[in-house]
């Protein structure tokens, strides 16, 4: 475990943990910063002030209650479907690679890709919004033609780490994949 500082492509600090379970099984976890209370407060205040302004002019109390409900539901949806706290990559030599992302609400989404389907794991470049970024991805083997790539599974999609972090993960993954 080293204390090198990593950031995502927008310059926010992220943390990379890796846990070696055995010589051919390693788990990488990229954690992005938690939901900041300040931002939540600002968003809530904004909605409520707006609602209060509407209430002031219309004298309709339904506006206030709907504002409260909208804020609550919006926050719940946000932490349940949007905000991802950790993304982890479990590489098990000769068995496969498991990607999982855990949302702020605790919901977890996991998928496992068998080693026989994996052709390689590479760092690629892509245009993302108005930036050109590096990202790590798994190349899936085309079942019909073993030398071809059928599709690409991008990793760490929500916390987009920068190149130095990707290189670290890439090297360990290659080490495990080449061994088995």
């Amino acid at each position, binding site marked *: 475990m080293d204390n090198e500082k990593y950031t995502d492509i927008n*310059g926010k600090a992220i943390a990379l943990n890796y846990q070696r379970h055995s010589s051919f099984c390693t788990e990488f976890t990229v954690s992005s910063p938690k939901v900041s209370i300040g931002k939540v407060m600002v968003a809530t205040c904004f909605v409520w002030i707006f609602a209060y302004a509407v209430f002031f002019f219309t004298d309709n109390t339904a506006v206030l209650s709907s504002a409260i409900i909208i804020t609550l539901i919006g926050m719940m949806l946000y932490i349940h479907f949007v905000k991802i706290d950790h993304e982890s990559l479990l590489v098990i030599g000769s068995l496969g690679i498991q990607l999982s992302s855990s949302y702020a609400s605790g919901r977890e989404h996991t998928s496992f890709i068998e080693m026989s389907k994996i052709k390689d794991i590479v760092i690629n470049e*892509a*245009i993302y919004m108005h*930036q050109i970024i590096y990202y790590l991805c798994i190349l899936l083997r085309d079942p019909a033609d073993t030398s071809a790539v059928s599709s690409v599974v991008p990793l760490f999609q929500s916390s987009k780490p920068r190149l130095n972090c990707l290189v670290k993960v890439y090297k360990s993954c290659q080490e495990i994949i080449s061994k088995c």
Partner: protein
Amino acid sequence: MGQRRKKADVSASSEKRASEADTAASNPTASNPTASNPNRKHSICMVSDFFYPNMGGVESHIYQLSQCLIEKGHKVVIATHAYGRRKGVRYLTNGLKVYYLPLQVMYNQSTATTCFHSLPLLRCVFVREAVTVVHAHSSFSAMAHDALFHAKTMGLNTVFTDHSLFGFADMSSVLTNKLLTVSLCDTDHIVCVSYTSKENTVLRATLDPQIVSVIPNAVDPTDFTPDPSQRRGGRITVVVISRLVYRKGIDLLGGIIPELCLKHPDLHFLIGGEGPKRIVLEEVREKYQLHDRVRLLGALEHRDVRGVLVQGHIFLNTSLTEAFCMAIVEGASCGLQVVSTRVGGIPEVLPEDLISLCDPTVRSLCAGLEAVITQLRSGAVPSPADIHARVRSLYTWRNVAGRTEKVYDRVAGEEVLPLDRRLLRLRQHCGSVAGSIFAFVAVLNFLFLLLLQWLVPDQVMDRAVDASGPRALWGPSQRDHPAEEAGAGAPTAE
């Protein structure tokens, strides 16, 4: 070299032209003795709307020039817009990296220009590739002009290559020329492909002739070798290879074909290329029942061009305007007799005895073609091998790359004007109205850049791994290592 204006219809001897070309190439370094050491390696970003998979002269110019510059040890990346599903980053031969940026195409493969929307992506390219010189191509390309503008905002040196000629008379030319004036007044150096083109560009953009160099195009002579055995005996074949558009004089061609075919029963036409004017040729073919003698091949791949060229005896070019015609050099390199219109920079391209020049009218072209046909019949023409031997040393890409490198050396030594002086120059150079408007746009662009730099600071962007240039990660031994494959598809090898 600025004084040496040449009229398009003045035909000069080849020796004189060669000496001029040499002066042009040596001039940049001669006029700027304080240029930094010649071995300095540049990091060049070529920007143009036109690149492969689109086909044409500009596209192959950019590709060949980049390959030769990489061979000389420079780092080259290309930025163009996305073509259909071809988006993102691709690698071509020798680690030539191409960014296909998702910008909206408006007309004729040229992107829409708003002066702003391409800044975020182009800035990203310039920053992550640590670009030192931005080289934009073709005045038709809106993206190239945008790139020149953004590069100046970011404080980079710029070079522009003009590939085409324009008129002065009509409304659209007046507007385009004004835009060109604005766009080029900031540019450090301009490259034109022929003297006619230089004259044209200097006049259109009211430039100082000192910063305009002439570097002609080139062809790869090894790709275009003659093979007389492919010619069919008992007939004379005329080959035309061009895009079938108005500028290339296809309406003239439609007039020539029936007239000559009536006179010479053994004359055949072989026409390669695609375009909106194809219908003209098809109608002519149907009207005069020439299906067996006029073959329309449709769009040709670059590698198939030679196979078509060697089947013919005469290469015909009917362009109405042309800065530098690469097609006639390719034709001559394959050992064909070249007949062409005398327009633009064409008279400069080939020595007089290898080309017959005619006026751009049906009658003059017919007369020229008939003269060549008579010569062919009498056998009074040089053999294809002789023609090839003379042409092969005229234009090579290495020569072009060497001369372009000198331009880069000169440009890299120049200082980039700070914003206030840039605005001042815009005002002085482009007139008070247009100058003020574009000065305002330049200020906005600068503010936009500041905003972007605040959102994503330069140091947060990852520096790209070099694929070419002095710090290239892919040595010559491991060039084809698929460590980083671009996009969902396989990288294109050209």
